[in-house]
């Protein structure tokens, strides 16, 4: 319970319209009764300063599409929402840059940019996902093969630190080495170092041509996928095994694995690559909703009986990694050197396996660890029921730089105001 005096202090800081009291929301195990939605940067800064002063912790949220990513918070007193920090402030069609506030749904930016011949280099799994959320999560969408990671789209960031100080880094120009590149640090930090207020983004020209293709495969063969991903116009390459294939192509003949490939670029290149895929893999045109289906599969909560994990590995070890996980539903994105897997936590499949002392959660984590080692990479459990996350690190084994990461958290947020406990290593 937050005492009434503290509530008043927060209301004063965030603005009268910005504070909502409600019955406890169970957010990743934290019963939160207060939502703060500051309407502008100064209010965001004042809100954070007040939280620091009161010794409270905030769970930071955009649209909440990836709120399940990360460890359960060690503490969360309020929900800090960027929903009202919304709007495209600049869309410069001559320069191909945009300035966008953190709470802006990226679907909105995509539409506005497309109207003048550009597109954002961000590929969220949902059009509702906000700029701040996608950058903070740092996870590339299927088009990451062409777009890179969210960090690569950023030219400059305005942020509010846990102390409430509002800071910026980078700028609006497309080439810049003035000062440290703090945006790289904030991107993918899951809101544990700062709250994003707005960003300057580099846009990319809309492609002259695109083609969306599917091809049946005997299995989700990594080698085939890597070759497809290396075509000049490849922008999405996803390989689904036979278990997942019907989700992506419900009308296709069942029983086989499936490749979903999007090509984009200059028309002659797209045409040449499409011909190549037709002759090599028997690829044919896919229904236009195929990418939405792919994104839905990647975004969907796995329910109470399974977890979904992503493994980032060496491209050449993707096949070895997949082999360790054979039998579980698999989705490979060879161009991103990543693989998604769904592992059962209950039911017949889990019960049949008596290893790891019969604990299906421990067994799933063990298996992920083995697969990550086979791929010379790492795993992250992207979505799982709360019970499966408690007492574990969803980011797997600590990496070598953990001490530096702890030192960074200590410097940026010594009191633990921002999403404490959600990041790797309990940061």
């Amino acid at each position: 319970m937050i005492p009434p005096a503290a509530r008043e202090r927060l209301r004063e800081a965030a603005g009268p319209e910005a504070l909502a009291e409600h019955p406890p929301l169970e957010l990743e195990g934290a019963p939160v009764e207060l939502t703060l939605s500051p309407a502008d940067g100064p209010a965001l800064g004042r809100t954070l300063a007040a939280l620091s002063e009161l010794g409270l912790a905030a769970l930071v949220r955009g649209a909440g599409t990836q709120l399940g990513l990360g460890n359960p918070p060690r503490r969360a007193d309020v929900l800090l929402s960027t929903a009202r920090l919304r709007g495209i402030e600049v869309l410069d069609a001559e320069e191909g840059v945009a300035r966008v506030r953190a709470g802006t749904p990226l679907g909105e930016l995509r539409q506005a940019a497309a109207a003048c011949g550009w597109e954002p280099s961000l590929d969220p799994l949902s059009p509702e996902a906000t700029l701040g959320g996608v950058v903070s999560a740092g996870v590339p969408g299927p088009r990451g093969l062409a777009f890179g990671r969210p960090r690569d789209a950023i030219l400059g960031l305005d942020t509010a630190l846990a102390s409430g100080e509002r800071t910026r880094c980078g700028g609006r120009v497309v080439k810049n080495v003035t000062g440290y590149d703090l945006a790289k640090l904030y991107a993918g930090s899951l809101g544990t170092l700062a709250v994003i207020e707005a960003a300057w983004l580099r846009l990319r020209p809309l492609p002259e041509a695109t083609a969306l293709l599917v091809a049946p495969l005997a299995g989700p063969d990594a080698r085939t996928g890597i070759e497809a991903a290396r075509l000049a116009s490849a922008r999405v390459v996803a390989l689904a095994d036979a278990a997942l294939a019907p989700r992506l192509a419900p009308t296709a003949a069942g029983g086989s694995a499936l490749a979903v490939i999007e090509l984009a670029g200059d028309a002659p290149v797209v045409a040449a690559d499409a011909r190549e895929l037709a002759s090599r893999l028997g690829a044919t045109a896919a229904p236009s909703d195929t990418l939405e289906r792919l994104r839905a599969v990647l975004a969907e909560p796995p329910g109470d009986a399974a977890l979904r994990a992503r493994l980032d590995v060496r491209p050449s070890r993707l096949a070895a990694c997949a082999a360790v996980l054979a039998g579980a539903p698999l989705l490979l994105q060879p161009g991103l050197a990543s693989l998604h897997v769904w592992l059962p936590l209950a039911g017949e499949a889990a019960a049949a396996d008596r290893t790891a002392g019969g604990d299906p959660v421990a067994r799933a984590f063990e298996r992920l660890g083995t697969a990550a080692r086979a791929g010379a990479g790492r795993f992250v459990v992207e979505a799982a029921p709360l019970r499966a996350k408690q007492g574990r690190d969803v980011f797997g084994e600590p990496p070598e730089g953990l001490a530096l990461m702890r030192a960074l958290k200590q410097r940026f947020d010594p009191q633990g105001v921002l999403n404490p406990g959600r990041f790797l290593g309990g940061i």
Partner: protein
Amino acid sequence: MSAAPGTAASAAALLARLRGILGPAAVLARPEELLAYECDGLTLHRGQPTAVVLPRETAEVAAVVRACNAAGVPFVPRGAGTGLSGGAVALSGAVVIECQRMNRVLEIDPEDRVAVVQPGVVNVEVSKAAAPHGLLFAPDPSSQQACTVGGNVAENSGGPHTLKYGTTTNHVLALELVLPSGEVVRLGSRSGAPAGYDLVGAVVGSEGTLGIVTEATVRLVPIPEAVETLLGIFPDVVSACRAVGAIIREGLVPAALEIVDQRTIAAVEASVYAAGLPLDAGAVLLVELDGPRVAVAAQLERVRALSSAAGARRVDVARDAAERQRFWRARKGAFGAMGRLAPDLYVHDAVVPRTRLPEVLARVCEIGDRYALRLSNVFHAGDGNLHPNISFDRRDQDELRRVLAAGEEILRTCVEAGGVISGEHGIGTEKQDFMGLLFGEADLDAMRRLRDAFDPEHACNPGKVFPTTRFCVESDPKARGYGRVEIA
């Protein structure tokens, strides 16, 4: 008992310890040996190192760092010393850790498309090693025949092809780093996904202040199937910039879009770099297109048409490699040509939104004229990155003063146009006191938090990037820039 820091006895003890670690031949300390290490490519800024060490292995670098820490002496990493912002200058009697002997390409992996290299490998050598596999290392700063990968990582180097391929930060996947404490860590991964905070992203471009890179895993990209180079002759810079705007607006992403102004053309044509450019041309636009042959052929025609529509008097397409080289000579010969006009050359570096280029260039030329300087411009027009070059003689104190004053005005002009004070050379000592033009105390303080997490003692390349004074440049004229330049 060790001697008190800062005394002659402690310096001698440190040298002895360094010789013990590396062997006597890898420790330089005689004044004549240190002379070459007093500055980098920015010759105006100098500092005398206590010693220069030449390690061959990571463990040696780590041992040197620990020895320096024990002696209370700072250290500064150095690659080929081609940097242009004073980043490799030793301040406070720092020990220079020269990485050029760590020059092995450790692995080329065509399957993962990565190269693993030591920091002293020369930039162009990475592409040479990758070429048999049909791959190359994309960052290609103008100094690529000399500069090292370690230096590229420190400065987040760019080059003429960043418009399409990005800068060094887009091509570094993993690093081995000797931290300022002497501890060795490996950051990043071959998959490109950061493990935790993106520390590789934070280290690239940190100008050697967060640690010493001892190994880099870099991305390799396929050698393009086709390359076409166009040279457009324009009546003036404005129309050349108009062509650039039209090309970008059309959704074309050339590998390079470079403009050479009339002043540079005159200098180039009067030099050994002469490329046969018409002396009455107002500006030259160099466009390089690369990619699949079918795409490049179509793009070539569009660029030609857009250039003509923007007012090009002539558009030539290189017929062969020799002609491509001749076209590039117009661009790359600029530094050499300007350099022969006087003993010293100041290569400026700033960025503005590319739509502001014509007006900013006019201002830059006006500033140069007002200070009676030999100033000319070559620039990466596609990304708005200006390089005003000023030929001068630093022994002429009055001219030097004018060079510095003009430089400051140029930076202010760029910032006022919505730009920044460095696009690829870095801040170093050159521009540290101009950081206040762009960033407030809170912004700089956030950057200090990163610095302090890596290097709480400020032992690694101290005195760089951050302003030397807490005073704002606006409010304290004495604090304005170039405090390290000795003007009699």
